[in-house]
């Protein structure tokens, strides 16, 4: 049934499907067909389900449109309106052509995104296995918070791939090989085709117009290579050639490029012409031409080649910088290909200044603009002197004591002579050694052995996974509070059952396992505490709800 909110893009009457008359509706997200007289749709396909569309060739009597779905089945619509059948069919086809690509990507993108996320992050993958595969929570809840970016149109944060530029020699790389007989083989790869389309948008347009209706791809490219558009002579033949328009467009574009000139005021291209000092010192401009005709042909072919080279280079540069370019970049030197000739005189003086300043000044040598900092203003700076050290009782020494001690030590050290043979007596030495031997006074292990030395690593790993999974569940649980909507109420109860289930299926076996291994340390106490807190909260909420209802 058509919902009222769906936007109907196109309605075609008198469309037969399976020998029944009816009307075809194209909507925002699906295509549907309903039989004549009834107001419900018998056939309805989402655009994302449709793999491709096919049309009957022009010559046939029946004008048909076929939709092939991803599942393999196909639906055929026969446009039966005598007068406007072809037009209708073409209109439907055009619309589908625009809509299908949009939906095709969306369906796969989500799955792709999910797979990618699971593959990239092993922790996430483990969490997914623990929770979803063992059916503790459903897959939708799991992906609820994680897939924020996929349904937006922008894949930008994940596609940080750099754009590949176009090689200037892409046409030359095609390298035709002789076929044995008089023909030439051109090897076209997808890269080359893409380069051609990016550099020459006119060709791309011709391609989309003609393929797949008038010509097959192969025919298109054969024509392309045969045309003089491709070859260097570029002598315009008759208008049979579909590329003669392209040639004319290119001529126009080139002329506009030349008139536009270079925007950098410090670069004067015109002064680079060949200048002659005198006869014999360079190229003389006026040469008596013996045979004008031949000369002119040769000259014109030379100038044609040079023109082609220049144009080709300009197009390659423009295509490479087209996507990242700021449209109003005054300082850029690449010329635009759409032939806009801006009035560069207006921009001349400030541009020159900018260029000169760039040449004179060095960023490194400028004064550093460090961010302004606020000075620390302390009222009691003596606190820093002792720092966070607890107060210790100082021994009080009277000044008399001090004087006595100093005198004492001075006397002693005045006659100090090292007597290194009587430093240590054997008894003291042995008692010291005893204290330092294992089991001695100094060798008692201080404090407990840390837990991570007592617990085997695989148990540690399992505990870690348990914590991650429990954390995820508890996060879902606690995010439901405060419970405002009925959806949250449902979710809260569901999460509580999930928590209980998790405790049963995962936590208890783990506890039993470590008990069996005689590990006396309490590894799961904290987890249990967390669960109990959650249950307690749920209980409180439930009782409050009961009280409110009564």
């Amino acid at each position, binding site marked *: 049934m058509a919902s009222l909110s769906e936007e109907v893009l196109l309605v075609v009457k008198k469309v037969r499907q399976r020998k029944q008359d009816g009307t075809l509706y194209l909507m925002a997200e699906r295509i549907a067909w309903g039989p004549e007289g009834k107001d419900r749709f018998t056939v309805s396909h989402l655009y994302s389900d449709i793999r491709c569309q096919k049309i009957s060739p022009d010559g046939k009597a029946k004008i048909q449109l076929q939709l092939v779905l991803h599942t393999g089945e196909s639906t055929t619509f026969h446009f039966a309106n005598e007068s406007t059948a072809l037009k209708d069919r073409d209109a439907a086809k055009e619309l589908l052509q625009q809509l299908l690509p949009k939906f095709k990507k969306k369906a796969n993108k989500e799955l792709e995104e999910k797979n990618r996320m699971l593959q990239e992050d092993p922790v996430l993958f483990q969490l997914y296995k623990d929770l979803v595969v063992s059916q503790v929570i459903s897959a939708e809840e799991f992906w609820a918070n994680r897939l924020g970016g996929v349904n937006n149109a922008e894949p930008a944060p994940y596609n940080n791939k750099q754009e590949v530029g176009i090689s200037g020699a892409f046409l030359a790389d095609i390298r035709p090989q002789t076929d044995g007989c008089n023909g030439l083989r051109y090897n076209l790869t997808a890269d080359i085709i893409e380069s051609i389309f990016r550099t020459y948008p006119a060709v791309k347009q011709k391609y989309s117009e003609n393929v797949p209706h008038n010509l097959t791809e192969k025919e298109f490219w054969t024509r392309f290579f045969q045309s003089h558009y491709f070859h260097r002579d570029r002598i315009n033949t008759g208008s049979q050639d579909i590329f003669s328009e392209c040639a004319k467009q290119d001529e126009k574009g080139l002329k506009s490029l030349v008139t536009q000139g270079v925007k950098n005021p410090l670069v004067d291209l015109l002064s680079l012409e060949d200048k002659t000092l005198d006869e014999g010192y360079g190229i003389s401009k006026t040469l008596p031409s013996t045979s004008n005709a031949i000369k002119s042909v040769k000259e014109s072919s030379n100038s044609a080649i040079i023109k082609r080279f220049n144009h080709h280079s300009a197009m390659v540069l423009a295509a490479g910088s087209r996507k990242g370019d700021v449209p109003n970049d005054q300082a850029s030197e690449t010329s635009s290909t759409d032939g806009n000739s801006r009035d560069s005189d207006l921009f001349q003086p400030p541009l020159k200044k900018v260029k000169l300043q760039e040449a004179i000044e060095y960023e490194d040598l400028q004064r550093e603009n460090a961010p302004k900092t606020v000075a620390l203003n302390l009222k009691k700076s003596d606190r820093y*002197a002792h*720092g*966070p050290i607890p107060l210790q009782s*100082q021994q009080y*020494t009277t000044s008399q*004591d001090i004087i006595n001690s100093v*005198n004492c030590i001075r006397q002693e050290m*005045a006659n100090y002579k090292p007597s290194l043979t009587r430093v240590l007596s054997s008894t003291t030495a042995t008692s010291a050694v005893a204290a330092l031997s294992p089991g001695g006074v100094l060798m008692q292990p201080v404090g407990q052995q840390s837990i991570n030395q007592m617990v085997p690593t695989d148990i540690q790993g399992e505990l870690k996974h348990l914590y991650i999974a429990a954390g995820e569940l508890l996060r879902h649980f606690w995010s439901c509070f405060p419970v405002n909507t009925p959806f949250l109420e449902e979710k809260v109860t569901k999460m509580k059952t999930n928590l209980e289930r998790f405790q049963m299926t995962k936590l208890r076996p783990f506890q039993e396992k470590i008990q069996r291994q005689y590990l006396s340390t309490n590894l799961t106490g904290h987890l249990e505490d967390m669960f109990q807190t959650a249950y307690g909260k749920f209980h409180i909420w439930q009782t409050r709800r009961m009280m409110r209802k009564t």
Partner: protein
Amino acid sequence: MASEDELNLLVIVVDVNPIWWGQQGQREPQFTLSKCLDAVMVMGNAHMAMTRTNKLAVIASHCQDSHFLYPSKSWKSGDSGGDEASSSRDGKYELLSVANNLIAEEIRSIMAKTEVTGNSTDTLLAGSLAKALCYIHRFSKELEVGQEMKSRILVIKAADDCALQYMNFMNVIFAAQKQNILIDACVLDSDSGLLQQACDITGGLYLKIPQKVALAQYLLWVFLPDSEQRSQLVLPPPAHVDYRAACFCHRNLIEIGYVCSVCLSIFCNFSPICTTCETAFKIQLPQMVKPKKKKLKQAA
């Protein structure tokens, strides 16, 4: 010629606080500063005798200043004055006898010059450690090409900690950590929290010896091996260090507290104005929810 052996530099910082040692001399006459210095000399000799490329430096940490006992500046300037010093009377390895004589001479002169005023009765340990670090740094710059050096500092501590040196001490500790210099501590009298932290942070050994008389034995057993050899030996386990900070208002050790984000001073209670830097803070209290008036359902 560049030697391929790794240089091992040991810097011994001896606490020669005259007040403490004077009192110690009266308390226990069998262990005085002389005995302590003898033990230090034995340790130094042993260290230098282990490998030819081992180097030694001894710094005396006094109340007034820190003084290099060995190597001393006067030694290098001219051998004529050092004739007496260099001739060893018992056939000892010359380097060792020179070192011993120098140390004895220096400590005698330091003690003779001691004048203690009432207010400076604390050992300048942070300063001595800083001097040790500088010496190590200078030494490492004078190495030949291709020579590597490993260094450590051994602190023999007698008197109590001085809380005012906290900042400098911590700076020294972190500098040593950055330079991979171990700080070992042999404590004679009372435990020192600062040295415990120093040993923990830099990876050295902290030991409070039960018998001062057997100082030489402890030094040779525990502190003579360098860090590589220590991993092969069974030595006293590291002590548990109490890293709890004390709050600035009461100087009590606390585990959870409040820290001012401007001056980083630690408090045990929240106060809206930090007393050190007078910054005002607001803390968000949980919202007070007004109880809603509920309409009571009329009993049918």
